[in-house]
């Protein structure tokens, strides 16, 4: 909690750190890691295809200002390092992916620091990797040593700020000068980001963006943030174009691009436009908004109160182009000392290479803010 910046170990009445590890055979992990790396390659190709036309971006259900930022003749702003996390679930039909966190994936301290501590304490297995180290190593390849780095997060969201502070400490330990800031404190001159605050003014050598792209698009002055998408010279992690992969509507566009999505098709449940399927009558469909960063926005009718479902029906009918319907999968519960739980294994991929896992357990059908973080440890066969 103190050294690893885990600042939300208790949410309401729920403790969010499991005092036991989740064990997985190495062979299982290798299968997930290979799938995640393959899906990364497919996603990057789809991302480029989607960026090529404004019409494609509009179909992703993104805010108009975000589409404006994503569609540009200027070259994409370079990535300092590119990280994404694929959320796998054990189901009765095998492993399924619920989403890729392509824009601003978190969970670094749980997947790195906490998992290492649990491995040392339990001696039951080895961590699947160290996403923090992989991320920082990638950062070091893309950013000049000892430079100035701005880390952006939204004020008031402690769960976001704990991530930026944790990353800032690692970068500071490696010699960079770090600044926690807000996008409005960035000013771009000739493509270079400058920080203007009352504790530091000057050009930045890199930006760590832990500020969701759709929230950027809601900022009043686009001049502060558009260069994080296109036309910027200052490397950004993740660059703004990562928002494309974050849209849950991306699978609706796949077929037209002629790009292989074989691995995705093997793991992602059938995904359709809400108007194409009888989701109101058929409980085998779940609803997700296009930009769905947390599990609590996933709507499963049997698991949703009557009032919340009525609100969801109104929202989907009002803006069906901002939602998807997706086949519901049936989780294979994991037996734990606390009883059976749904598991979610978030597999990190950093610059195309698998880098570790962020595992969570939930009593409920959805993995949300109240899920328990658990250290995933690999065991020999």
């Amino acid at each position, binding site marked *: *909690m*103190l*050294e690893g*910046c885990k*600042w939300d*170990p208790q*949410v*309401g*009445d729920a403790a969010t750190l499991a005092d*036991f590890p*989740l*064990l*997985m055979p190495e*062979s*299982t992990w290798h299968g997930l890691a290979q799938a995640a790396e393959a899906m990364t390659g497919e996603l990057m190709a789809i991302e480029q295809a989607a960026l090529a036309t404004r019409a494609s971006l509009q179909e992703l259900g993104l805010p108009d200002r975000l589409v404006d930022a994503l569609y540009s003749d200027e070259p994409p702003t370079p990535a300092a390092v590119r990280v994404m996390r694929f959320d796998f679930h*054990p189901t009765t039909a095998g*492993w399924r992916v619920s989403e890729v966190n392509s824009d601003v994936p978190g969970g670094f301290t749980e997947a790195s620091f906490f998992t290492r501590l649990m491995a040392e304490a*339990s001696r*039951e297995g080895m961590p699947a990797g160290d996403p923090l180290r992989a991320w920082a190593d990638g950062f070091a390849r893309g950013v000049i040593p000892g430079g100035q780095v701005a880390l952006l997060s*939204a*004020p*008031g*969201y*402690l769960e*976001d700020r*704990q991530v930026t502070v944790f990353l800032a*400490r690692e970068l*500071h330990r490696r010699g960079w*000068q770090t*600044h*926690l*800031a807000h996008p*409005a*404190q960035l000013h771009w001159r000739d493509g270079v980001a400058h920080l203007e*605050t*009352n*504790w530091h003014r000057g050009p930045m050598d890199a930006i760590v963006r832990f*500020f969701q792209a759709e*929230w950027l698009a*809601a*900022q009043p002055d686009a001049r502060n943030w558009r260069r994080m998408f296109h036309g910027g010279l200052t490397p950004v992690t993740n660059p703004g174009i990562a928002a494309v992969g974050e849209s849950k509507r991306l699978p609706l566009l796949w077929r037209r691009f002629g790009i292989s999505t074989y691995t995705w098709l093997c793991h992602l449940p059938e995904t359709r436009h809400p108007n194409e399927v009888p989701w109101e009558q058929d409980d085998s469909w779940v609803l997700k*908004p296009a*930009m769905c960063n947390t599990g609590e926005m996933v709507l499963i009718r049997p698991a949703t109160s009557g009032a919340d479902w009525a*609100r969801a029906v*109104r*929202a989907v009918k*009002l*803006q069906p182009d*901002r939602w998807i319907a997706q086949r519901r999968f049936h989780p294979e*519960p*994991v*037996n*734990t*000392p606390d009883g059976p739980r749904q*598991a979610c*294994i978030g597999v990190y991929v950093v610059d195309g290479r698998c880098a570790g896992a962020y595992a969570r*357990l939930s009593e409920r059908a959805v993995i949300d*803010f*109240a899920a328990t973080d*658990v250290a995933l440890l690999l065991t020999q066969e």
Partner: protein
Amino acid sequence: MTTEAIFEAWAPTGARWSAWAKPVLFSCLPTATLPEPPALLGRPERALLEVPAAADDLALVLDLPGAEGVFTGLALAQGGYRPVPLYNAVPLPTDGLPSEREGVTLVDVMPILAALARLAPTVAGCSLRAEAPPAFLLDAHRRHGSHPASPLAFDNRSVAFTTDFPSADRLLAHGIRRVWLIQAENTAPQADLANTLRAWQAAGIALWLKPLAPNTPARPLMLRPPSWLRALGHELLVLVGLRRQPLGGFNGVLSAPVTTSTPRSAQSAG
């Protein structure tokens, strides 16, 4: 004292309400250059005189500015309450060191940090029962800042969420039937805190407000649900995707075969 010892003093292992103590500020201690804590204002003793003696059916919420909550919490600890720090704002880490310059951050948390560190031995010495009733400590400046807003400042404002507190069910399960809100002025509770208090009240917990202003006795506090117009307005914002959650951050909008290998491990699908 080490950082861990300071945190342990305020959130001792095994104490009933320690799990809710927020580690945020304590996490910033190793790199913090602490100022002297502000002088004791005289209020804590008075608060102790005007607040009921520690009782197992009573919890306190102290929504006081800056370090005053820490001092008052310590005074109440000497009267048998367990102070539970719920401070969510971070200082500005510049080059690994929190800045002390006034106005650099919107919420000045260094006096709170200093008070928590310097008073840790005293609170540890109170030898409170593990079941001691809680006194949750909040910074009244958390939402609006302790300095005039500046676009150049580090925005470390924060919000107290319902999930920062135990639920009404948990309070009731431990016999707590009354909650006293202690704040500086005789005004309505802050909007973020009101959400939590309203939920507690709806579950049957009696609320009282005790302002620290002179000659203002404690009074029952009745919180009404938000108006239908406000609720409708919020729902519309949710419908069009403009809001993640009520009272959220300031800039979201703008602003496997399964077996158990050991008693405490779980095995995933293979």
